[in-house]
């Protein structure tokens, strides 16, 4: 046999094998899903739109998880007990921010890359994918497409805003960069705050013009963006840009990019306040058309006192589902966990219940923040014995709708404004709630008993107690129902991201900054009136040791700021407001305090305990970008101080 023949044999074999080879290893069926399929139909595109909403960082948490948004538990309003704060010795992120645990190595609750929270750049990429592909579905009508595009633009603006509020200058994601682009293309730089703000506002203006005033089908669509939502966000964005943190902040004089451009403007610009003021007014006008009004309870079912009525107005403004004051609520997050965490056990009946956890504990600072019954700060009220606020007194009959008559309680709990009693639960305090799932009867209201050994002191297994002795009553709906055994059944409400009182107060703030103090007081008084307080000018004139305070820009600014902190307490506003006002270092370096929950009697219980000493440095005004992200992209400038 010749070599030629051997080669022929081999060649034949190779050919035979080769033929079948490529078919044999081709195992993948044709119809495997690819991203283009997401825009095949209206229905699939709608899923993509829902995906965009789905990136909203968790505000209240739930399902065993704490919120990705730091605003509720990383500030000085709420203090969680040790077991919740550090389950199994592993501290959760939120409260670590308070005590100076923020760091560049593994940042806490950030939103940029690998920084302990969601990476909102993913959301922005998906927004752009949506906007680029939304022409594709064959059965999406134009009018609907127009709204969806506007919603996507709104969300794109919101995610940019969320990042800007946290990080200041950020790289704008106007268009997506292809995955295959070279390193130079993907290594983006940060854009100055003013440019970021301008882009967000431009996006929002496009969204405002195309969004409806109200959703067409509340059953299916409540929770989606509307014209009011976009306009209110625009007001908020512009106010943020006008505020001291980003407007003429000289702390950032050396905060520049590689080319030397200032990333935060250090020159104060009064026009920014004017733009913010106009946007607030626009938002209020649109809200008006959409039917938004400050919440008040409609005719009470039982014979309520005026105190009770006011308290229910205040509590309902947040906890009444989809009330007229709400501009944008988080329909996706179930607030039942939050409500359970805000509520103590109220009586012996609920001994075996598991649904009152009470660990969402307001700090003593919050208790001190509320006005006196005269509507002025307690330290300014000439009728209020400020220096004796920790001395024990006895609640009189005049307080019977607030505190159990004859209850021995510190002066701090007496003679306060209705919002104090509506927002906080405390030892001896009245807590109106319907225990039977029926009407709210004032005379059947509960009294909180929170001393050691009493129902509200320890709410069952695990870590269910208030560390400070206060309870966030405002967050718990009055018609929640705690059965004798088992969990709390709650009235679910969408947690407010934006509500009308917020916008009114922003408008008042911008009016004051643009030197229109009288008009500012008009909008301030609308909120005060609902809270059962007299107007600013009268209150200060009659009761304050500083009666002319509202007549100066600085004085009124302080008043508006405190009003905001009171009205919007526990809603996650103070956290960001203190930053944009550049006042966080003033508040966030003071002790976190509360009552001694191990006290069995009045004397022991009303001792003040310090739980932690917060730490806030200038660098904390902006979040650190994780070091990993800085290393990956040398074009990024780290925030000052980190």
């Amino acid at each position: 046999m010749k070599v030629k023949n051997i080669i022929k044999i081999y060649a034949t074999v190779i050919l035979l094998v080769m033929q079948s080879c490529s078919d044999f290893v081709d195992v993948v069926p044709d119809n495997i899903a690819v991203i283009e399929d997401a825009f095949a139909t209206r229905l699939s595109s709608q899923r993509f739109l829902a995906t965009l909403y789905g990136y909203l960082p968790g505000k209240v948490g739930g399902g065993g998880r704490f919120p990705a948004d730091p605003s509720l538990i990383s500030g000085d309003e709420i203090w969680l007990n040790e077991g919740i704060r550090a389950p199994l010795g592993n501290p959760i992120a939120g409260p670590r921010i308070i005590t100076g645990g923020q760091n560049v190595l593994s940042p806490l609750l950030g939103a940029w890359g690998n920084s302990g929270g969601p990476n909102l750049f993913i959301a922005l990429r998906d927004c752009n994918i949506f906007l680029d592909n939304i022409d594709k579905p064959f059965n999406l009508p134009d009018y609907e497409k127009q709204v969806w595009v506007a919603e996507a633009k709104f969300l794109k603006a919101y995610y940019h805003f969320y990042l800007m509020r946290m990080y200041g200058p950020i790289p704008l994601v106007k268009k997506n960069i292809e995955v295959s682009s070279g390193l130079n293309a993907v290594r983006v730089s940060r854009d100055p705050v003013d440019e970021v703000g301008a882009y967000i506002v431009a996006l929002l203006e496009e969204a405002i013009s195309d969004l409806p005033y109200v959703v067409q089908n509340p059953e299916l669509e409540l929770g989606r963006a509307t014209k009011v939502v976009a306009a209110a966000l625009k007001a908020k964005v512009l106010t943020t840009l006008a505020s001291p943190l980003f407007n003429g902040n000289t702390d950032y004089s050396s905060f520049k990019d590689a080319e030397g451009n200032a990333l935060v403007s250090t020159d104060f610009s009064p026009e920014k306040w004017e733009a913010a003021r106009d946007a607030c007014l626009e938002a209020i006008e649109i809200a008006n058309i959409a039917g938004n009004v400050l919440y008040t309870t409609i005719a009470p079912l039982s014979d309520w006192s005026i105190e009770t009525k006011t308290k229910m107005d205040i509590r309902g403004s947040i906890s009444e589902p989809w009330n007229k004051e709400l501009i944008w609520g988080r329909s996706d997050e179930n607030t039942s966990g939050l409500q359970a965490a805000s509520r103590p056990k109220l009586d012996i009946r609920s001994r075996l219940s598991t649904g009152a956890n009470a660990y969402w504990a307001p700090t003593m600072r919050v208790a001190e923040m509320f006005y006196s019954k005269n509507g002025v700060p307690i330290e300014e009220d000439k009728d209020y014995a400020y220096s004796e606020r920790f001395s024990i007194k006895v609640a009189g009959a005049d307080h019977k709708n607030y505190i159990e008559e004859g209850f021995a309680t510190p002066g701090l709990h007496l003679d306060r404004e209705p919002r104090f009693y509506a927002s906080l639960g405390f030892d001896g305090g009245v807590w109106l709630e319907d225990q039977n799932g029926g009407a709210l009867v004032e005379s059947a209201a509960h009294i909180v008993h929170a001393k050691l050994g009493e129902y509200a002191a320890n709410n069952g297994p695990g870590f269910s107690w208030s560390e400070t002795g206060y309870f966030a009553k405002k967050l718990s709906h009055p018609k929640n129902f705690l059965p004798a055994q088992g969990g709390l059944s709650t009235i679910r409400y969408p947690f407010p991201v934006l509500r009308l009182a917020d916008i009114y107060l922003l408008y008042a703030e911008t009016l004051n900054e643009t030197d229109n103090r009288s008009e500012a007081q008009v909008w301030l008084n609308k909120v005060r009136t609902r809270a059962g307080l007299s107007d600013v000018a009268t209150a200060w004139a009659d009761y304050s040791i500083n009666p002319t305070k509202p007549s100066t820009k600085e004085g009124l600014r302080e008043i508006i700021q405190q009003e905001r902190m009171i009205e919007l307490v526990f809603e996650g506003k103070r956290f960001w407001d203190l930053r944009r006002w550049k006042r966080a270092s003033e508040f966030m370096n003071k002790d976190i305090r509360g009552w001694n929950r191990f006290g069995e009697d009045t004397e022991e219980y009303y001792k003040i305990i310090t739980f932690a000493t917060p730490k806030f440095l200038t660098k904390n005004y902006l979040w650190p970008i994780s070091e990993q992200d800085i290393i990956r992209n040398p074009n990024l400038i780290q925030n000052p101080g980190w």
Partner: protein
Amino acid sequence: MKNLIHIKRYALYSLKFDLKMKLTIYLLLISFFQIYANSYSQNTKISLELKSVSIEKVFRAIEAQTEFKILYNDKEVDYKRIVSVKFKKENVSKILDKLFSKTSISYEVLGKQIVLKFKPKIPIEASIDTKEELFDFQQRIKGSVSFSDGSVLPGVSIIIDGTTRGTETDFDGNYSIKADKGDVLKFSYVGMKSKSITVGDSTTINVVLEADSAGLDEVVIVGFGSQKKESIVGAISTIKPSELKIPSSNLTSALAGRIAGVVSYQTSGEPGADNAEFFVRGVASFNGQNGPLILIDGVELTVDDLARLQPDDIESFSVLKDPTTTAIYGARGANGIILVTTKVGVSGAPIVSLRVENSFSAPASRIKLADPLTYMRLQNEAARTRGNFPTYTESQVAGVARGGNQNVYPTVDWYDRLFKDFTTTKRFNLNVRGGGEKVRYYVAGSFSKDDGILKVDPLNDFNNNIDLKKYLLRANINIDLHKNTEMIVRLHSTIDNYQGPLQGGNAVYNAAVRTSPVRFPAVFQRTVENMNEPNVLFGNSTQGRSTSVFSPTSRSENPVWFNPYAELQRGYIERRKALSLIQLELKQNLESITPGLTARFLGNANTTSSFENRRSYSPFYYEVGAVNPADDSDYRLNLIGEGGDTTLGLDPGNRINNSVLYMEAAVNYNRTFNDDHTVTGLLVGTAREFLDGNASNLQLSLPGRNIGISGRFSYDYKNTYFAEVNFGFNGSERFAKNNRFGFFPSIGFGWLVSNESFFEKSKLSSVISRLKLRASYGLVGNDRIGNSRTDRFFYLSEVSLINNGRGYLFGENFGEFIPGVSINRYANPLVTWELAEKANFGLDVNLFDDALQFRVDAFFENRTNILQTRVDIPSTLGLQTSLQTNVGEVKAYGFDGSLDYNHSFNDNFWMSGRATLTYADNEYTVFEEPDYSKIGAPWRSNIGRNVRQNVGFIAERLFVDDAEAINSPAQLTGTPGEDYGGGDIKYKDLNGDGQITELDLTGIGNPSVPKITYGFGVSMGYKRFDLSMFFQGLGQTSFLIRPGEISPFTNTITASDGNDVIEGLGIIFQQNGRPPGNGFIGENGLLQAIADNHWSEENRDVYALWPRLSENRVANNEVNSTYWLRDGAFLRLKQLELGFNVFGEKEKERLGLTRFRVYLTGTNLFLFSKFKLWDPEFQHKGLNYPLQRVVNLGFQIGF
């Protein structure tokens, strides 16, 4: 016994004329290989001159000069007839006419075959012309063959040199063969030195063979075939299966140190979960799949299947290491290959071999824990030193100190509570080997039973201890269908029947060290009130720790603590795993086409299936209620909550079901021309399909397929110069079309210097009996590129169009959930296999007549195209998942060598020794990472580091006090003076930026895969005794202690499914959807070493073994750093064996036995290492089920 070659020729003869033979198989091969034939001129003329030779030799001479094959039946044709012939350019047919003119033989020419036929009717007449001598010189030679230790050797092949005639010894070692005076009989046997004896006057020739580990004539199993060991140009390590016999039911635990080039270590001793990690020449990639390709009888199987192999069943075990030997596997060979073949039958009466072993095993080492009182004292110290109130009150401590009531003041030795002192293992192995002329068989069965060392509560009516029973059945049947066609059927089945604790043995062992000795007893002693309760009174408490003293009201309604004893006793897993394999192989001799040509076909199907049932009940827990402070026997025992449920419930566990089909067809050519030129060729086509029957997603459910052709061509000249070319051309389903197929060539050369005439003449040859140089170079691929099998189809995007984890909930009543879209992978069509460019240089030297044999290989590898997650894609790009591409490159290098010694001093005393050493190192050469030197942190770069080196911080020492911590660079996380302070670890700020950040990380210590693996041992025998010992060690390896796992008093127990759910109130753990049973808070035990040596306020030792104690985990101290770096080097006496052959030769004969050996084996007897806390081979997994020290008694019987 018949002359073999004639039997074979008869077979082909029959095939031609009897189509009832199994032609189908033959035709199948023909169609596959397209036998090519054309008519051969009848006019072929040859010249021939032979004197006094047999007709057979004439035939052979004709065959040599032409392409004719002459076929005949040796019963019919008198092939021994002696003739003399002389032709010049004569036609072949004329020669044949003349040779058979006076006989009853006629012939027929069929193509190139000449078939001789018997025509009985023609009378025999005297021959003409040629001178005829009808004298037969041949005589029958008889004798026996034995081993130098006196045992008989069945299956020794005896061949008459220069012919292909031969025979084998029977089961008694006897043989008989017809041979001429002056013929040379060549006796050869695998593992023995061959012996050649010239036939003289005597008709009895008894032969003694000696062991030969060099095995010059040995055949080595290589990819898709075998090669003469002499002609190997690559690097192959082989090991005698007998060396793999250790008293363990896991073969992988025997590999370490015994095979040059294999790096191996074991990190658990738990039966059923004790597979060793092993790598061929270390690792050369930074991805997860670095293990070698495992081929058993040519079929790719898993590590588990290798672990289950019985050394008794193994015929050969080779490890292929270099490019020439691995390139033939193309894109699958880059990580080296382990090739195992199992035994086949031999003709003869059945040889039965029985091995029975019974082992006693106990942990080779035990973690030492501090006594309960020290535990309490130091836990109070831990609380106090971190600014908390002490955990235990004075009265509690005093209660324990005075040995109070165990229910009230428990002191639990959890180890003792959970574990027995020792356990037993039984192994039986029985095999039968034999066969007739046409059918040979090897049938083996084995059974082993491994018990764990866990305790079973007498109240339980089920066994929760580990009980692993393994059954194995193997049948290898070789059938000669025809003299040129052999069929081999292999059937193999293993069943593992496992019963054990719910969480596995490692977890139980872990828990013993992770539970407080003083919190609660494992089980309460019954008091009068609960004397009659039917359930076990498991200990627990409703009182958590963080508030224990301060807040007596802070009680849970459920058990808070993790009670490992309850966890162990509350249920068990029953798991059954079965592998079954059926294999058909056909071997066809195609000498009829051309001498030396053979073909082979192999089909294989194997299935693996496994299922488990987890049965458990929820225990009743109790706690001590009120206690009379004056009298601790006066107390109440309360049931916690509403109790449990003692009826068993079921959780179906994991199920595995997969199936592999494999096919292989090969043609082989092997021929020597003119004695000097040997040429071999091999071409093989393979196809494999893997199907997962229990896939969790669509992409995993798609079959995994490989297909390819490979080839090997070699040439050697005078057995002195060798050259070899190999290639593999194959593809797999996991890459994009244009990247699917790869071509992997290699080339190798060898020079057997000792066969050179100049060398043979030189004086050196008296000392150096063999000297060989080898070199090879080539490309090999690795298509297992991801970190696991699930990393496939990188060229496809993976999109979930309806993802309920995404999306948003809208609507007034929160009723409109719209699911979202997510991307799990971005398509990258460019992803392809890893490519290894390898070179190997080898040297073989045998000294003193092969008594000392030395071989060493140096290797170099450049692995490119390593799949890497792109790290420099900024997160601002907004990708949902990371991108992976083939960018990484690793350079690997090292050497491995072995030294063997064999000598028989006299008939009574022999000795052998073996040592191996492997050095394997590697370094990143290309790794996508930020330019660290640009940002002032060059030490952070991976380039130049070993891929398995740990990365961590440099720990300077412990902080002296809080003030120092506050004034030092800010550490990773936390506030100085609060979250960390005096007595916590101080890290070095490498870049001097005033804070410890990721940029201060650097490579620390030696790699976790050891650079050095070695082993050495000696065996010796004196008369009927034999003794062997083997040491094994690792060097240049480090590991990091995981402080979180052993940090005293902290809780590190997590739910078995890792699914801890923090519900609003407290912590509720859910296990597989069942109601919470056990609590899940633990308190780590206190290692005695930590109790003895830690930083404390009184003893501020900044270099203490342990930092300042804490009841909670201290994040600052738990990061990887040099503080936890330990030397993993060790040397252990792995095995010591003493054997005794009970009977002498005569008694054996009388009893009909061929072998009766009793032996005593000990493993893991001594350990030498710097690290003392636990066995350093376990690395950081020190709390795993310990490695066992085994004492084993066994006997082997052969008859």
